[in-house]
């Protein structure tokens, strides 16, 4: 099932560092226009996997195909854009010169000024990179990702060092990339950020892919309890707690944990209590809970 149109296809990828295996049989696909979040602790193998996809390091087993080409080949490099973690450049060059170098290397006739304006470096483009802040270097890194319409964009911790406004800009640009048909892989720690802004989530734990699905799919698989918080009216708190089997958390509220399947039954039960219930909040499991579940802290 080799598909030349698939931007990224990884099969049974194994990578050793010395005698320790750092990636174990990873399978991963990204479709055109899809935004995939790759999550995992430090040292889980995210950066190693990205470097293997870029052809910067050799892998010992399995296969990687970028638009049907081998990693590190001319075709694969031309199709790929990369933003390294905490990107840096030669401090003596200006942002404009650095981006012009990248454009020449990729053989693109690019609108350098336009791109730099786009990432908010219009004012600083003729200043030396040595005088840039961390966030400005990150923006310059992002500008080079936009060069030449990549088919696959690999972003390693793209939001590290960015302020909240810049993060919003960054995700706007990522969405633009995806709309143009690029497959985007975002390796990240910032769970709350990627939660709403990616289409699919893969989680690595110690070099093993332990999850790979949409947020909803992951929730369903994990079977994590939904939290119902019921606010009692008057002195009915105790009654509600005993009838639902929930736990009183303060004078007027009861917290009930139930599986997604039981949720409706619980809600009906609560609704039947009539006036005793003043309000109800429903908290589905968040990515943080899911991440903790899949990355092992909750696993026996």
């Amino acid at each position: 099932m080799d598909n030349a149109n698939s931007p990224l296809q990884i099969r049974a990828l194994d990578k050793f560092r010395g005698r320790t295996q750092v990636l174990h049989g990873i399978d991963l696909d990204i479709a055109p226009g899809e935004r995939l979040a790759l999550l995992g602790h430090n040292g889980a193998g995210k950066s190693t996997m990205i470097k293997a996809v870029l052809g910067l390091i050799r892998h010992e087993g399995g296969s990687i195909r970028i638009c049907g080409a081998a990693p590190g080949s001319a075709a694969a490099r031309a199709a790929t854009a990369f933003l390294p973690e905490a990107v840096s450049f030669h401090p003596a060059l200006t942002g404009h010169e650095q981006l012009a170098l990248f454009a020449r290397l990729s053989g693109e006739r690019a609108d350098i000024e336009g791109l730099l304006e786009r990432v908010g470096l219009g004012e600083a483009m003729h200043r030396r990179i040595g005088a840039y802040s961390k966030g400005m270097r990150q923006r310059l890194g992002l500008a080079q990702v936009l060069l030449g319409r990549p088919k696959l964009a690999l972003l390693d911790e793209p939001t590290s060092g960015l302020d909240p406004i810049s993060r919003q800009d960054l995700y706007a640009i990522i969405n633009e990339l995806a709309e143009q048909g690029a497959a985007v892989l975002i390796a990240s720690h910032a769970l709350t950020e990627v939660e709403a802004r990616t289409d699919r989530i893969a989680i690595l734990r110690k070099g093993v892919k332990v999850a790979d699905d949409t947020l909803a799919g992951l929730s369903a698989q994990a079977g994590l309890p939904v939290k119902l918080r019921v606010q009692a009216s008057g002195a009915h708190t105790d009654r509600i707690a005993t009838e639902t089997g929930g736990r009183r958390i303060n004078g007027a509220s009861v917290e009930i944990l139930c599986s997604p399947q039981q949720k409706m039954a619980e809600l009906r039960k609560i609704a039947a209590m009539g006036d005793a219930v003043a309000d109800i909040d429903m908290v589905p499991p968040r990515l943080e809970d899911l991440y903790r579940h899949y990355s092992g802290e909750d696993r026996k």
Partner: protein
Amino acid sequence: MRRAFAIARAEMLILRRNRWLFMATLIMLAFALALSFAGSAPTGTLGVDMLTVSVASMTTLSVYLAPLLALMMGFDAVAGDRDRGSLALLLAYPAGRAEILLGKLMAHLAALAVAMCIGFGAAGAVAAWFGGAGTESLMALGRLVLTSILLGAVFLVLGYALSALSSGATAAAGLSAGVWLVFVVLYDLGLLGAVVMDSGGVFTQKIFPWVMVANPADAFRLWNVAASESVALSSGMAGAASALPGWAAPLSLLLWPALGFLLACAAFRRVEP
């Protein structure tokens, strides 16, 4: 090739920005001029024009300075980018590693060439103005500039290889200093010791000249000396030069940059950023 030029262009900007080009030219100019004036005394006794003497002393100068300047530019080529963390990104672009090194080599070599031409050229002009110059001594000056650039190329590519092999820029700088010491100082001292021990035996007669010419720094000296009788006379190296065929020194000095470049590429290919 287009990509190599793109790299060369950026490297050239960097050399100009961080004043490398300026400093290298200044160093060459200062030393060459100083030697030209200091070495103007023995012209009468040897019966050669002042430019010839000046070229002979500048040959000795270049043996030390060209490798030093080249290594100082070369050691940072790979290790600097890796230390900064910009190497991974550069290698993700569709430029081969040999292309990247070639681009850096072109820029660094151009910078060396500028420094050599200005430094030796100015000193030569001064010597010719005050002490006269003939066709032969002008040829010798041209040869000195060209061979100095070749010698620089040898140590540039050796610097790249060290840069790729070492764990960081600091280690690469240390290794470069060691390489300079071995090729420029210790190698000759060792040979001298061997010749003294051998006291005119088979080693001195047959092997010594070849071992000597295998070192690019000595090949540089021999080439400049062998090609011009009067330079040989004034530098006192005629003996070793006459024991070798004329092509030996040029071959060594041309082979070293090529082999060194291949070595540097091989070392660079093993780098995992």
